[in-house]
């Protein structure tokens, strides 16, 4: 592969990057190859010493803050719809439809987050309840032992059950919070994915 081919492929791989960022990257790599050639390497060798284009593109895209992609996306959509004023008017007119729809989507999303959050909270409350019950039962055992020994044994049994349940619900709570965090991560990636089209190398 020669320098021109390499840069063309890189440009394609950085398709979604804002134009000025893309050009800066291409200049940087062009300079790197030129400097290697000047250092006594052949063009093929110099290009061969670069990393795989997929790896380079992924790293550059990962390092570019998301707001740059967003502004680029807005720009490209605006250019495609040749008439901006018309688009604006259409957007306002159609707001009767899209505002309720968007609010509904937002409400559904927040209810979803709220519900999951409640699950996690419930699990932690279970831990507290079982733990507290176990402590109270254990504390009560000496008093019960004086008046009704069989009650004390019963209480001890229940205390063990409570401790067991507390441990189980704690594990449940930890698993749920972990799941919640993971879900949030997946969601965040998905949002970024809407703006960044991944290049399959």
């Amino acid at each position, binding site marked *: 592969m020669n320098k021109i081919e390499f840069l063309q492929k890189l440009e394609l791989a950085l398709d979604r990057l804002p134009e000025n960022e893309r050009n800066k*990257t291409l*200049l*940087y*790599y062009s*300079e*790197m190859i*030129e*400097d*290697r050639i*000047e*250092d006594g390497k052949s063009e093929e060798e110099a290009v061969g010493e*670069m*990393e795989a284009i997929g*790896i*380079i593109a992924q*790293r*550059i895209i990962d*390092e570019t803050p998301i707001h740059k992609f967003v502004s680029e996306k807005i720009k490209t959509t605006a250019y495609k719809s040749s008439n901006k004023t018309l688009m604006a008017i259409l957007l306002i007119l159609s707001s009767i439809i899209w505002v309720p729809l968007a609010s509904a989507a937002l409400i559904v999303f927040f209810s979803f987050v709220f519900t999951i959050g409640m699950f996690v909270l419930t699990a932690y409350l279970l831990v507290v309840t079982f733990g507290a019950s176990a402590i109270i039962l254990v504390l009560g055992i000496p008093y019960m032992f004086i008046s009704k020994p069989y009650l004390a044994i019963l209480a001890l049994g229940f205390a063990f059950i409570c401790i067991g349940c507390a441990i189980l619900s704690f594990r449940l709570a930890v698993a749920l919070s972990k799941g919640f965090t993971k879900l949030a991560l997946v969601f965040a990636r998905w949002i970024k994915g809407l703006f960044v089209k991944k290049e399959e190398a």
Partner: protein
Amino acid sequence: MEIQLKRGFYEVCVLAALKQEDSYGYKIIKDVSPYIEISESTLYPILKRLENSDCLAVYNVEHNSRLRKYYKITENGIKKIDEFLLEWEDITKVYEYIKEVGAGNE
């Protein structure tokens, strides 16, 4: 090495290379790579970050009828190296302690 630690190392290494003289991408890689593994795609975001945080300045020089980007360290960049060295003194103390007390098999 941990990513955060490595990131800091890279930044200071590049700054140190620039403290000697103004330099360009390929030369930085050649100067730094005997000490730390660095590739073009690692260097690129580091230079960008250092430029954004005002640790270096960029200017173009015409060279063999093409433009070459040169990087120059700023006051901020020099301060960053000094901070790193100061911080490292503390880390060295901890390292000595760990080596003395924690290492070796009984």
